[in-house]
């Protein structure tokens, strides 16, 4: 297979060492693309995905599951599209890119990408990309990214408990999805909108941004979700999203009217997610309200401890007078 974009990279890089041709002065400004990857032509794909957990030495497959993915890019230029997941013929759900998306600047403050090699998967050329934690010079995970489409053909991350590997066993880019039944769109149970911190503080005057957020993380967005509940009418929940550019966690607060009126710490009760659950970590604060005890503050993360999450939730509450 001819690797045009790769050749382009080398042409750019080699422009200074290759003997100049007569018209080099013109060639010198040819605006060739640089990186050996492109995602520009991907409109849709179908893939079968195997997710495996291997023993730490990688020799034993401890667990293996298979799923199917249909991807369809959005109509608008800035719409990344949706992933429709199936397993055993059952529809698992539809997913979009995480919103709000962390700014790229934040990613590069904490991580860098190292394109370290090339591999062949499913008879396709992919580039091995490591995501490296900048402060520790530590590889976090690696992916092999298809040269032509940019799709991840293999993902691998090492945990103390084992190696998690996700790999495509079948991949068809740009398929016609008009004949594929992707199921009905999931009903929108809630209305969500972006709000500012000032708006949130107008609704909940006592709320404070959490203390003790991990180094490198920043608040990347606040959303207010309104959910109609038959007995209770509109219930609003505020979500605070934090990210270091790659990892995310969110802290949320259900704006029960009695909680907003009386956030006394004595009325909250902490619960931590199971310690042996690897992902996600969770912590909740239940509120002993006027009518009943209600779930009120929640934190979910993939790479923080439940106790850290709980501490951040507590720090959002005002001190008792």
């Amino acid at each position: 297979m001819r690797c045009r974009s790769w050749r382009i990279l080398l042409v750019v890089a080699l422009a200074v060492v290759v003997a100049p041709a007569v018209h080099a002065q013109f060639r010198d400004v040819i605006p060739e693309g640089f990186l050996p990857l492109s995602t520009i032509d991907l409109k849709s794909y179908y893939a079968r995905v195997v997710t495996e957990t291997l023993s730490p030495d990688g020799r034993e497959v401890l667990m293996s599951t298979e799923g199917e993915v249909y991807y369809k890019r959005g109509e608008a230029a800035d719409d990344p599209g949706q992933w429709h997941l199936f397993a055993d013929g059952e529809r698992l759900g539809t997913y979009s890119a995480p919103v709000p998306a962390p700014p790229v600047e934040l990613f590069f403050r904490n991580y860098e990408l190292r394109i370290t090699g090339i591999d062949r998967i499913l008879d396709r050329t992919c580039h091995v990309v490591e995501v490296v934690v900048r402060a520790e010079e530590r590889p976090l995970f690696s992916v092999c990214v298809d040269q032509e489409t940019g799709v991840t053909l293999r993902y691998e991350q090492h945990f103390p408990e084992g190696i998690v590997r996700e790999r495509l066993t079948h991949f068809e880019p740009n398929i016609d999805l008009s004949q594929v039944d992707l199921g009905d769109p999931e009903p929108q149970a809630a209305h969500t909108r972006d709000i500012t911190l000032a708006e949130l503080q107008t609704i909940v005057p006592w709320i404070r941004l959490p203390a003790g957020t991990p180094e490198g993380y920043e608040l990347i967005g606040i959303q207010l979700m309104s959910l109609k509940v038959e007995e209770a009418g509109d219930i609003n929940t505020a979500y605070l999203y934090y990210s270091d550019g790659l990892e995310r966690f969110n802290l949320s607060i259900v704006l029960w009217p009695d909680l907003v009126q009386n956030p006394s710490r004595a009325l909250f009760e902490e619960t931590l997610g199971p310690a042996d659950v690897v992902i996600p970590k969770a912590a909740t604060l239940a509120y002993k309200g006027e009518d009943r005890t209600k779930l009120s503050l929640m934190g979910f993360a993939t790479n923080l401890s439940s106790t850290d999450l709980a501490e951040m939730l507590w720090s959002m509450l005002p001190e008792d007078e």
Partner: protein
Amino acid sequence: MLGRTGRVVPLIVVVLLVVSAASMAQVDIGLLPFRAQLPDAFYAHVVVEVATDDPEKAGLTLESEQRVYYKKPDSPDVFPYYYPDVGPQAWPAETSELPTVYETPPIPELPIDLFYANYEIRVHGLDEAAGRSCFLVSIMSRASGHPVADYCVDRETGLALRSVTYDLHGNATYRRTYLEFDPDPDLEGIDFPRLPFRVMQYPSTDLTADELTARLPWIRLPTWLPGNFQLLAIQHWHRQAPDGRIFRWWGQESERYEILYTDGLDVLTITVLAPLDQTKLPERTDFSAPAGPLDDNALRSLSATGPYVLATRKMDRIPDGDLYRILWSMLPGGPEDDDIGPDVNPEPMYQGGHYDAL
């Protein structure tokens, strides 16, 4: 331990299956937002600076400055359209008989696995160039751990808006900077001219090492190469063009052979000239290196009466001494034919003929 792992594992798997789409999304959209889609047209103001060997001109000096309109060609086989924004006098008037300009035969695609054996690419930040946001990208040498080139790659088009290459000592040798880049220029009124010349390639034939040996029994492929270079191609440039024109290489009627080595990024080209009118095959002692100072772009060459020539071009990241050592090692009968250890690095002057330049 296994029991604990056994419980942990399904949770990881379940979550990962659920988040797999998200992780793909991150890679597709967030992690690797690279594009290589070039605009159909653009206006660019480009400055190129290069290093010289002149000790009084430290750093980089301006080599060229261009303001150019570009339009994508109608087909990949057509040369792109350029219009230099420097006034009509800069563009030669079209004539019915366009002069022919010959360019070198194409270099084969470089082996990408060799590139990754010797280098890696790091994408490590964001910056601005030509008023546009770009990714900071470096090509790192695995051997030295230092960058051999830095780029600022336009986030929208994939174009390197700033390119800097470095020599062995980390000094910049070349810098190309886009001062302006407009991917949506006003092309109205611009009549893109034809190239004022016809571009053709020197006719050439690829040879095997055995075929080269059969034609040039007085040399061999280098027995010493720096770093991890591998043979890429051997080209025989024909002496005569299809239109009957005879090429003279460096003023001589010679057979010309190009022996190309690469480490996946750099291409080391060794040129061998074998004059047509010589019947005596040269020996090692017939060769000498040029005396006197070397200018920046001079060929690093050995020549023998005839003249037979073995030459290579100055390389950013290969010292001149190593270039000469490569050339000497192609002439049998030198000390490198003995079993010298890897720690022994005889200077080229000890390997054969006269060599005053070092």
